[in-house]
Structures are given as structure tokens and as C-alpha cells.
């Protein structure tokens, strides 16, 4: 099936799936001051890109993902998704979201959990059934239709969450540390699965992670962020050939890129420590 957003729609000359310009986010703190969570975020994500956001905790990467998904309002700047404001994109059901916790409903079977967005969006019964089956086959859980979430392993639950996020063919898949709670083996297996799904569905993906190998293995670009205030310090193009396999993880280029991302992260960590010292001296 074709996705609803096509090249026929009138759009700005350079069509970006996501365009962030000068995005800021600050939260009021109890003592009356404000904490700057995100500052001066500019980022373009092209259609069908797989972009990872990586950074230390507190760098605002999950906040940024939620701003893109119109779940949090930015304090400043603009967010355009498929040429529309983020709010309109959410109303148009352009987002599929996967959180760190699977957020499956205990009272729904696997099948019914995947069907949830299709019910909300009032797909026809036949279309719902077709898509649920298609999505569960895609994540290789076709045999678990009538299981309840608590009867599945953590990895399987997260695959159900992915199937649910993709069921309505959103233009943009937003994933917030989806494999953060899983063991390394399961995580690597699911990484390969996500790449296969990405190749098949051709969705744009923004993926938040704190795992360097995961970010490098999955992405076409890795966006490195630093904390306090959260901002983008480097963008690393990942030129590993597609399709990527377990062998990719053993190539020299892969290790070079892992090193590059690690050093970008470390570079920021050093200078933010320096800034913290400087702030300490002032305060």
C-alpha cells in the first residue's frame, strides 16, 4: 500500500520529513528560575532517513522526540513535519510511536493491541484484520495473536509495540529508547529486525538511544547531543552499505564510526564538565 503523503502534495522545494529550526525548550523550576532543556536545535531529516539521537542522560533527546511528535510544546522555534506544523501532523496521524516501555494494554490480546490505533482511526473491520495480520507477520509474531502481553517476553512485547506503531502506516516512526530495557542479545536481534522492517516499510525513523553501537548499526545519520543545555554538537553520517547484517558489526568502517561517535560524545562531556566548573565558580 502506498503511504498517504505523496510527491504530488504542494511542499517547499526541499521537502524534509522533519525540519527543526531554532527549537528551544525550558522548564520552570520550583525556585522560580528556568532550566533550559534544549537550545538552538536545527535539524533536517529527509524522507526515509534513519536518524538516531544520542547523548548523555539529561541532554533532552527524549524531550526533542516528544516535541517532534507534538506531545510537548517547544518554548521557541518551529517544528515542521512533512511540510506541516507538528500539531497538524499529529492530527493527520503521521506519527507512529514506540516508547521504552512497550505500553501494551493488559486487557487486550496481542492482536487487539495492534488493532488499537486502527480502531481509534476507524479503519474498516476487514482492513483492520488484514493489517493486524500483516504487521504481526512483519514482526514474526503471527503465532501469538491471542496471547496476552504478560504471557510474552520483553523483546516480544516490544515487537508488538512496533507492529502497533506501524499498523496505520505512519509517515514517521518515533522510537524512544525502545530496546533500552532489553538484554544485549535481544537488542542486537531486534536491531536487525528494525532495519529489515525499515527497508520494507520505507518509513522515516527518528530513534533515541544511549547505545553507540546501536545508533551506528541502525542509522543513516547519528545526531550527537550534549547536556545542560541540550544541544546538537555533531552529526555523523553513517555510510555503512545497506543492507546491514551481523557481519556489518565486524567491519573496520563500523568500528571507525563507533569511535567517531564516541569521541563526539566524549568531546562534549569534557567541555560540559568545564562549563559546569565555570558555572560553579560563578554561582
Amino acid at each position, binding site marked *: 500500500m502506498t503511504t498517504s503523503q505523496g510527491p504530488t502534495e504542494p511542499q517547499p522545494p526541499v521537502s524534509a520529513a522533519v525540519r527543526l529550526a531554532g527549537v528551544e525548550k525550558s522548564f520552570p523550576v520550583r525556585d522560580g528560575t528556568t532550566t533550559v532543556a534544549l537550545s538552538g536545535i536545527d535539524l533536517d531529516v529527509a524522507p526515509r532517513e534513519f536518524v538516531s539521537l544520542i547523548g548523555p542522560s539529561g541532554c533532552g533527546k527524549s524531550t526533542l522526540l516528544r516535541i517532534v511528535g507534538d*506531545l510537548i510544546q517547544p518554548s521557541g522555534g518551529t517544528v515542521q513535519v512533512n511540510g506541516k506544523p507538528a500539531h497538524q501532523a499529529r492530527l493527520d*496521524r503521521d506519527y507512529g510511536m514506540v516508547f521504552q516501555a512497550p505500553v501494551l494494554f*493488559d*486487557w487486550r490480546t496481542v492482536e487487539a493491541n495492534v488493532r488499537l490505533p486502527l480502531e*481509534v*482511526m476507524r479503519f474498516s473491520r476487514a482492513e483492520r484484520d488484514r493489517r493486524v495480520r500483516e504487521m504481526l507477520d512483519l514482526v514474526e509474531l503471527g503465532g501469538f495473536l491471542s496471547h496476552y502481553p*504478560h504471557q510474552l517476553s520483553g523483546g516480544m512485547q516490544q515487537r508488538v509495540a512496533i507492529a502497533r506503531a506501524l499498523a496505520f502506516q505512519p509517515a514517521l516512526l518515533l522510537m524512544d529508547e525502545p530496546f533500552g530495557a532489553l538484554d544485549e542479545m535481544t537488542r542486537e536481534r531486534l536491531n536487525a529486525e528494525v532495519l529489515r522492517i525499515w527497508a520494507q516499510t520505507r518509513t522515516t525513523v527518528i530513534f533515541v538511544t544511549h547505545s553507540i553501537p546501536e545508533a551506528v548499526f541502525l542509522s543513516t545519520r547519528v545526531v550527537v547531543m550534549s547536556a545542560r543545555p541540550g544541544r546538537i554538537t555533531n552529526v555523523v553520517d553513517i555510510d555503512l552499505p545497506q543492507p546491514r547484517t551481523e557481519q556489518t558489526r565486524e567491519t573496520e568502517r563500523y568500528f571507525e564510526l563507533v569511535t567517531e561517535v564516541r569521541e563526539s560524545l566524549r568531546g562534549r562531556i569534557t567541555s560540559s564538565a568545564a562549563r559546569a566548573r565555570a558555572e560553579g565558580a560563578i554561582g
Partner: protein
Amino acid sequence: MRGVGSAARLRQYLPAIAVFLAAIVVWEIATAGPGRRVLPPPSDIVGAFGENAAQLRKSALATFYESLGGLAIGTFLGVLVALVTSRWASVRGVLLPVAIASSAIPIVAIAPIMNNWFGVLNPLSKMGMAALLVFFPVMINVTRGLVEVSPAATELMRSYASSDAQILFKVRVPNMLPFFFTALKVGTTLAFIGAIVGEFFGGTSDVLGRIVLQSLSGGRFDTAWAGIFLGAAGAIVSYLAVSLAERLVIPWYSSLVAQER
């Protein structure tokens, strides 16, 4: 699966059944002599059932009717108020303290007032007592079930651009059902207490509360105890009915709870 489950359940309840039967035997032996003045032996109580079968049956049905009526009214109002308070946080701020304060009312003092309102012979005066006791746990539990939804679940629904009604029916209500059934189970017992306390304050004579009082004043302790057992049996039967309904309505819940143990 089912066979294994019921066999395991039987094994689980076997000690309780054994203790219950042993207690009956000890009771019978201990009250054979002068102890009879304090507590009639089980055989006398069984005898009292036989002697007063017609009156006891009629009374039990009447009390059962009052209790279930009160349970229904209290549950309905509890759910209604919970829906309103969970929908509007401002209403919650006003109503919850009032509701909590109302639970501090000594219920026994309300019984004569209920008789005043509905008429002493009207079963509604007893239902009102039962409803009053049932209302509070239902309202508090259902409110919690409606409100205590994981923030991620709400975020997920918002990412689908779902309406408030969809969030209510697809997330809040299913999330609330286990809380509701827990409250309803507590409510079955409370409803019988409320109805019988109401009966103490006057009304028709063929109800369990009056049977107990009249038998006691006439020295018929065995009949009084027969009435008490019928009240307990009614509460247990309605409790089991609620448990059965729970299994049918939220089948996923018992297997989830079993796994978490």
C-alpha cells in the same frame, strides 16, 4: 489447563475446609453442656432452620432483596460520581473531601433518618443504608482506576490524535474494571451489614434483622444464629457471584495476577 487449575484450587482450599469442619465439631462438643446458654450447638441451629423454614426463607429473601437493591444503588451512584470527578479535576478537588468527610458519618445514626425519608416499611429505607455503605469504596476505587492510567498510555493515545471519549472507553474504563470488581466484592458484604442494621431500627417483621432481635428477646438463640448464618450466606453468595462476573468480564486479570505472584 482448566482441570489442573481446579485441582490446584481444591488443594489450595482443602486446609480451610478442614479447619472449618473441625471448628464445627469442636463447637458442637463444647456447647453440649451448660455452654448452650452462651452459644447454641450447631445441631440446634440446624434444628431451628427446620422449625422456622418458611419464615426464615421469607426473611432471607427480603433482606437479600434490600441488600442487592442497596448494592445496585450505591454502585450506580459511586460509578457516576467517579466518572464526574475523574473527568474534571476541579470537581475532584471539591467532591473528594466532601465524600471522605461523608464516610466519617456514623452510619447507625442515619438509619432512623432513612426511615423518616422513605417510610419505615418501605424497603428503600434499608436499601438506602446499604447504598450508603457501598457508595464510598466504589466511588474511591473507580476514581482511582479511571485516573491512575500510565502517562505513557495517554501519550500513546494522544499520538493517535484520539478523542477524550476514545481515551475514556479504550484506556480508562478497562483500566478501572479490576478496581471496580474489588470494590464490588467489598460492597457485597457492606450491603448486607447496611440492610440488617437498617432493619434493627424498625420495619416489616419478616426480615433477618428483626428475626435476630425477636429470637434473642424470646430466648431462641438457635433461631437468632440461623438468621445470622443466612445473612452471612447471602453475603457469600453475592461475593461469589461478583467473583464469577469478574472472571467473565476481565478474564485477563486473574491470569495476570496469578503470574505476578
